[in-house]
């Protein structure tokens, strides 16, 4: 009969331990109020996050300015939609035509060129559609159309916008074709899908470089001027949305085009991939890129 109290003591201990565990978990503060004014929402594309560039730049910026950056990595389309609603402070996007519309609508101010890299077409090593050696990108797309699997982002991202522009130049409407599949996912995941299904896809070079070791999808087409991938920083117009952190947005955009940051961008990825992922362009004109 002596066993019983022992057992209940043990039970009590387990309960106590559990209680402490829960209390400890809850007690830790989740957000400090003092940070509020310093919060900055950066809406950007998946490529800047998936390549790891922002992991390098954001801590630099935070240290320098004391802002706390909330990076929301979505497609350029969604990033601009957030800006249009005043739900982001600053954008780093790569969808020039949509950006122009955004600026015309007075949703943004101070659109500044930050950097570029380029898009490439990747696909199965055997290149069943034979796009290698095509003269122009639309020509390559024409060869793929109809007979071979093409994996599209389908998410209104900058890459998707570029892809649609190329289809248009090729005079083809790919929507609804069985050979044309849309993932609705980020670039990294779309590349994985293309690798698994042995399809062709359009990707920015940066994301492809950072993933290529596992992919088995070589570059089959590159270098066409239409394939330029240009990133701009845009501050969301605080005249339209008073809650926007205008000072923070300006600080971030200034930081992105500053000499120090541009230098980091220039060498980012060289140690790991042997070539840079992005080319800094602050102060240049879009027309001069790629020359």
């Amino acid at each position, binding site marked *: 009969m002596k066993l019983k109290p022992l057992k209940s003591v043990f*039970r009590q201990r*387990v*309960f106590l331990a*559990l209680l402490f565990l*829960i209390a400890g*978990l*809850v007690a*830790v503060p*989740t*957000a400090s109020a003092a940070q*509020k004014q310093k*919060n900055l*929402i950066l809406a950007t594309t*998946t490529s800047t*996050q*998936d390549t*790891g560039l922002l*992991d390098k730049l*954001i801590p630099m910026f935070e240290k320098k300015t004391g802002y*706390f950056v*909330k*990076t*929301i*990595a979505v497609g350029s389309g969604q990033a601009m939609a957030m800006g249009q*609603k*005043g*739900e982001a402070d600053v954008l780093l996007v790569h969808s020039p035509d949509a950006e122009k519309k955004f600026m015309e609508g007075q949703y943004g101010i101070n659109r500044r060129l930050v950097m570029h890299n380029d898009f490439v077409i990747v696909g199965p090593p055997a290149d069943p559609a034979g796009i290698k050696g095509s003269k122009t990108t639309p020509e390559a797309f024409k060869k793929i159309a109809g007979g071979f699997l093409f994996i599209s982002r389908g998410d209104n991202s900058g890459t998707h916008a570029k892809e649609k522009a190329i289809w248009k130049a090729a005079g083809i409407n790919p929507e609804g074709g069985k050979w044309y599949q849309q993932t609705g*996912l*980020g*670039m*990294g*995941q779309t*590349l*994985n899908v293309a690798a698994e299904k042995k399809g062709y896809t359009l990707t920015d070079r940066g994301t492809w470089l*950072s*993933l290529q*070791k*596992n*992919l088995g999808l070589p570059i089959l087409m590159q270098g066409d001027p239409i394939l330029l991938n240009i990133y701009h920083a845009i501050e969301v117009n605080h005249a339209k*949305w008073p*809650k926007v952190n205008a000072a923070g947005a300006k600080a971030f955009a200034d930081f992105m085009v500053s000499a120090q940051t541009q230098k980091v961008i220039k060498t980012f990825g060289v140690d790991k991939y042997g070539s840079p992922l992005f080319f800094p362009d602050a102060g240049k004109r879009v027309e001069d890129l790629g020359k």
Partner: protein
Amino acid sequence: MELILQGFLKAIELLVSLDPEVLGITLLSLRVSGTATLISLFLGISTGTAVALTRFPGRKFVVSLINTGMGLPPVVVGLFVTIFLWRNGPFGFLEILYTPMAIILAQAVIATPIVTGITLAAMQNLPPNLRLQILALGATRMQMLWLLIREARLPLLAAVMAGFGGVISEVGASIMVGGNIKGYSRVLTTATVMETGRGNFDTAIALSIILLFLAYMINYLLTRIQQRERPR
């Protein structure tokens, strides 16, 4: 197979070396989902008990709503919580979108109907005369409620497990309302999605293994408590 092995080794490496980032992500997951579960227990057990013990017009409708809520899709919750918490939305003044607080809120919304539903079922399964007997012995209303909850504690522990399991494994709402911000609102599930997108499959597998291990540990503890005292 090799990849899974690699991921497994990576998980051990990350755990043994106490990688600060992974540790932070793991603790945040526990904290967020633990708090959300606590909130849902408070709301769920009280609502579930109230609905189980009372009769009112439209009760069947309410019960069917609760049961539907048990399968509430996290992305739907995420979408609505996001819209409500937008700066320029109805609760924008709280300024909690893209914070751990927002994730707790969304997860509590997901877990509450689960806890409510299981509580409701557990309470209705108690012998119908038990209530009468307790009252006949001179218990006050509060004492009766407390005794009933005590009597249903084993299925209620199941509610805790189901609620916690539902939210710690959830990704759709967490990524939408939390934003997967590094060192701030990144939890195990959203980090797994991101590492998969980056092609770091070994890290992604490692994070999944940590998540599974965590879920197992918590449930093991709760199961021990639950099974300690079988109803006679």
